[in-house]
């Protein structure tokens, strides 16, 4: 196509010479990847225990045993407290900064009352701003306390039946219960789909997601560049007055943005691989195809937008919305299982879903290119539709 190399060269220089593009496409996602990976490491790599503050006002053997037991189901953060009473004000002070969801207080004389079979309720203070998480925490604590009750009741029954003292039978009962709980009668046999593959790290979850999420900003580069040339510069008119056809003029912008998108993915995946030990699997061709097809989406979206509006503010609003919405619904920002069913259904209508699933298949699920061919085909449809709409729009515009 005549003039394509000239137009491409110009668009490459304009786009690659723009430091804002590098910041938006490389630096910002990298910052997000690092911070989110560390911030949600526990959630992403499978240790979702919530933090629980425990204030032990009794400081007895029984209270320490309870604290130790609770630490098996929640992550206990102990707080020493010298005062005689612990009030709601003190609790509010503990989770006022948002670092704690709930505070469990073991009251004074807890051990004595337990020994005397008197009620000795624990006090649970819940952060009103985090009620949802607090109920999960409460269930975990209650389960643990019910296990304790089960031990006591079983010990009493066994002692009565056997005629032996409770203190004597207790260790045996405790051992039997522990064995039963750790080895249930209906066992779970976890199947290893990819032999020898360690669990995905937090970075292996975040690098693909944030790479896809931020590359949608490239649509701004395409739409903005075309709008800028049309609205504020005579360069658009001068270029279109040359023998170079209109589709070639916009193709240069599209290809430059597309190449920058591919480069962004390569850089972020390389950083993930070499700086954070991210494993890429062995299907490099499949990964490359997924990335190439996905990067055509923002280029096409930008072109289609530019074909219908020169309003840069409107373009940016639409693109910013697309970046966030597609990333959330498509599973690039959050794992899909965290989304409600209706949103999981909607995710199929985003290119992010098909790209993320293809990448996860190839990187973590041990699938090969043939296995993800269908998903990549759907992704290709998402790429081709906006590109076609955009090119047709420019091809058939009568006036510059």
């Amino acid at each position, binding site marked *: 196509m*005549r*003039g394509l*190399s*000239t*137009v491409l*060269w*110009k668009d490459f*220089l*304009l786009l690659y*010479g723009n430091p804002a593009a590098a910041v938006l496409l490389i630096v910002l996602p990298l910052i997000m990847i690092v911070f989110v990976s560390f911030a949600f490491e526990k959630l992403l790599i499978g240790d979702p225990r919530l933090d629980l503050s425990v204030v032990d006002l009794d400081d007895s053997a029984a209270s320490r045993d309870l604290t130790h037991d609770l630490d098996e189901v929640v992550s206990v953060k102990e707080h020493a407290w010298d005062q005689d009473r612990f009030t709601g004000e003190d609790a509010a002070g503990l989770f006022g900064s948002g670092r704690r969801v709930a505070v469990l207080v073991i009251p004074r004389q807890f051990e004595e009352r337990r020994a005397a079979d008197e009620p000795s309720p624990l006090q649970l203070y819940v952060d009103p701003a985090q009620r949802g998480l607090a109920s999960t925490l409460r269930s975990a604590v209650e389960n643990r306390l019910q296990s304790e009750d089960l031990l006591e009741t079983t010990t009493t029954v066994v002692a009565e039946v056997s005629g032996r003292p409770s203190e004597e039978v207790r260790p045996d009962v405790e051992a039997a219960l522990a064995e039963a709980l750790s080895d249930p009668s209906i066992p779970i046999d976890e199947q290893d789909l990819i032999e020898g593959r360690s669990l995905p790290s937090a970075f292996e979850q975040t690098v693909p997601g944030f790479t896809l999420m931020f590359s949608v900003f490239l649509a701004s580069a395409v739409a903005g560049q075309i709008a800028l040339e049309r609205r*504020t*510069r*005579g*360069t658009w*008119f*001068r*270029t*279109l*007055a*040359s*023998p*170079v056809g209109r589709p070639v003029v916009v193709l240069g912008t599209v290809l430059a943005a597309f190449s920058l998108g591919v480069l962004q993915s390569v850089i972020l995946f390389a950083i993930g691989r070499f700086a954070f030990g991210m494993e890429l699997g062995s299907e490099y061709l499949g990964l490359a195809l997924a990335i190439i097809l996905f990067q055509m989406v923002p280029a096409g979206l930008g072109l289609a937008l530019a074909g219908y509006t020169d309003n840069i503010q409107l373009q940016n609003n639409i693109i910013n919305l697309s970046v966030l919405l597609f990333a959330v619904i498509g599973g690039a920002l959050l794992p899909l299982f965290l989304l409600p069913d209706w949103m999981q259904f909607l995710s199929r209508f985003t290119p992010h879903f098909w790209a993320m699933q293809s990448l996860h298949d190839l990187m973590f699920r041990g699938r090969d290119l043939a296995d993800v061919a269908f998903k990549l085909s759907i992704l290709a449809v998402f790429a081709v539709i906006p590109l076609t709409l955009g090119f047709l729009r420019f091809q058939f515009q*009568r*006036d*510059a």
Partner: protein
Amino acid sequence: MKSVTIRGLHKSYGDQHALRGIDLEFREGEIFGLLGPNGAGKTTLVYILATLRSFDEGAVTVCSYALPKKSQQVRESVGIVPQELAVYDEFTARRNLLYFGGLYGIPSKTLKERIAQALQLVGLTDHADKRVATFSGGMKRRLNLAAGLLHRPRLLLLDEPTVGVDPQSRHRIFEAIRQLSREVGMTILYTTHYMEEAEDLCDRLAILDHGTLVACDTVPALLRSLGPAVVRIEFEESMPLAESRLLAQPCFSSVSTADGVLQVGTEQPEEALRALLEFARQDGLHIRDIQVRPPSLQELFLQLTGSDLRD
């Protein structure tokens, strides 16, 4: 030889008529001026000739190629210098020219030679490798002109190329345009709303007003239509004498009135002045200012359109 022939050209944007039945011809090698206020249709006409706008009715032939059928050939033959600064601030002057020249598929060696010539023509040789963002407005305008010349167009369309330009740059641009017309034989369409520019530079002029062609001829011939002199009287009162009464005077060849200003073209300035003073006395009008001078395009425009060009 005709470089451009336009017959019955109509162009509308929705309900708004930009051009209403324009008939024009540009001769090869001439500098043809297109004069008119903002919104007269000048830029629309330029964009139609550059194939950037379609038209509704009429026939347009550019460098022997009929539009819109032969748009591609027309684009090869035409150069445009748009009203907007059509250069990239991010690039150097040379890189801009490499880009715009590259669009025409000019071989690299030839293009480099032409860039050097174009830069010299507009006086930017010493600034070739500086970023355009550091240029003054006048320098950008000169580069804007250079970018339209690289493929040696047979027709160069200059759409208000001196807007916001300092006198030095304006002089440079004028010199370059004259040189292109005289030495290269390039046909130049020059649109402006500066009367002095049109008078000074153009071989022939067309005056457009509200999309209609109101006059087209050489500058001396257009001025002659007003007579050898113009008598201009400014009254204290807003409503001057009725035109019909004045036109009955045999010594007035043309009459125009606007905003308390009466202007007559005349072969006999003394007779005309005497008659005007008599009219003013009879009607009880008070005179603020009187001028008798050779006619200018300003007066011609006022007479033809009834309004000042810069309104």
